[in-house]
C-alpha cells in the first residue's frame, strides 16, 4: 500500500514489488491477498485475513504505475478484471481459487471495475 503514497524511494518500491512477485507471500493465482500466504493468520475467506479485495488491488495498480512497474500493473489489472468477469461484483475473492465470498452486488467492486476497464 505504501506504493500508492508516492513518497517512497524507487529502491524501497522495488523491495515491495519483489514481495508482490513471490508466490509464497503476495503472489498466489489471484493476487493480491490481504494477508501474505506464509502468515499464520492467513485464511483465504476470512474477513480481511487473506481474501483479495478490488479496492486494495486498485490502489496497488495505481501505485505500481506511479513507480513505472507497468507490466506488473497490467498483469494485476487483468487478473482483477478476470475475477469480476468470472464471478460478478462480489465483496471479496479467494486468492487461491478465485471463488467469490462476502456479499454480491458490492458497490465499490462495481465502481472500480468500471474504472479499471477504462
Amino acid at each position, binding site marked *: 500500500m*505504501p506504493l500508492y*503514497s508516492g*513518497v517512497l524511494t524507487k529502491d524501497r518500491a522495488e523491495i515491495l514489488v519483489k514481495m508482490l512477485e513471490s508466490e509464497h507471500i503476495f503472489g498466489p493465482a489471484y493476487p493480491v491477498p490481504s494477508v501474505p500466504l506464509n*502468515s499464520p493468520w492467513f485464511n483465504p*475467506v476470512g*474477513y480481511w485475513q487473506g481474501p483479495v479485495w478490488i479496492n486494495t488491488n486498485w490502489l496497488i495498480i495505481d501505485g505500481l504505475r506511479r513507480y513505472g512497474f507497468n507490466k506488473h500493473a497490467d498483469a494485476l489489472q487483468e487478473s482483477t478484471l478476470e475475477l469480476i468477469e468470472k464471478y460478478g461484483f462480489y465483496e471479496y475473492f479467494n486468492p487461491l481459487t478465485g471463488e467469490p465470498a462476502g456479499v454480491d452486488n458490492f458497490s465499490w467492486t462495481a465502481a472500480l471495475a468500471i474504472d479499471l476497464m477504462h
Partner: protein
Amino acid sequence: MSELHDHLLPFWIRSLRKTRLDVVFGWFRSDVKYAPLEQRESNTDALALYDIQRRFRRKQYDFDRIINHSLFAIEDLTFNSILARANSHLVEIAKALREELPPELVESIKKTESTFEQLWDPISNEYFSRDFVTHRPLKQTSIAP
C-alpha cells in the same frame, strides 16, 4: 484483528471469548444474514468494534479525548499512504488554481512525508503500522506493507 491486539481487548470481551459466550452476541448480528459468519468479522472483533463505538460516543467524538486514552489507537500505514497521496493531489490542485496553501498545512504535508520513513523496518525490509503511544511497530505483515 483480535489475534493481533489481544492484549488490548477490554476485560469483558476477553472473558466472553474465554467462556465462549461471545456466540450469544452473534445471534443478534444482522450482517451475518447476508454472508456466512466465517466470512465476516469474528464475534470478538465485532464486540471490539461495538466497544470502540461506545467509547467514542461517551467522549462525544472529541478527537483529543479519544486519543488521550490509546486503546486500539495505532498509526495506520494504509491510512497514512492514502493521506500522503491526497496531500500531493491537494498541492497539484492549489497549483492549478494558483492558490497558496497555508504554511501550517505545507509544514504538515512535509511532516507526513518525512515521518513515513519511520514506519520502515530495516530488519524485515517492509513497512509496518505502529502503536500510537509507544511507537512500537506492529510487526504483522499484511497487504498494508
